[in-house]
């Protein structure tokens, strides 16, 4: 009984987590982070090189994302 109740509450917590709202910046950061880490691990690199690659890719993702956002700003109204 207790285990089934905890399973239901865990499922409800999961659904609540899915419905969480993200700001544009949060979505950008999550996207950049996940893809950077994935690309970093997909290639054949030494651990130190891998960390450098992940950080560099993450930085470029964020810079380009924010840069394109600002470039589109004059056309937004």
């Amino acid at each position, binding site marked *: 009984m207790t285990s089934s109740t905890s399973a239901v509450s865990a499922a409800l917590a999961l659904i609540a987590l*899915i419905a969480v709202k993200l700001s544009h910046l949060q*979505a950008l950061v*999550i996207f950049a982070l*996940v*893809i950077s880490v*994935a690309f970093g*691990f997909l290639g054949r690199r030494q651990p130190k090189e891998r960390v450098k690659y992940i950080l560099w890719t993450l930085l470029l993702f964020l810079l380009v994302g924010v840069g394109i956002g600002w470039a589109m700003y004059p056309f937004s109204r």
Partner: protein
Amino acid sequence: MAEETTAQEPVSQPQNSRREALALVVGVAGWLVPGLGHALLKMWGRAVICFLTVGVLVWVGAGMRGNLFTSRGNDAFDSLGYIADLGTGGFYFVARSLETNGPDVSRADGDYGTRFLATAGVFNLLAALHAYEAARGRKA
């Protein structure tokens, strides 16, 4: 390229076709279940990363109510979106079950979610291709 060929040990034809078939199985497995292709090759780190990456992207994309395309698309972009979404393999159906309220692209969130889902699919296809190449004996 020629140096690589000469450096490799000579492989007999049946062995070669067997390796090719195995690589195909690895590739298809990696597509159906993200990370399974790498897991079959005992590349555990990459398997976990692929599974988590595709899982997180699908989870967030479905949570943002992104558009999950179906085969009944109206134009070429819908068809391309469907192909990209199908790239997630089994996670396509997970995303379908997570999106209980259906997509909502009237807000920016839904539009972002659509991109998350498509990226998950394209990344999984890339990962499956990587596993396939690794199984064929190419440097990966």
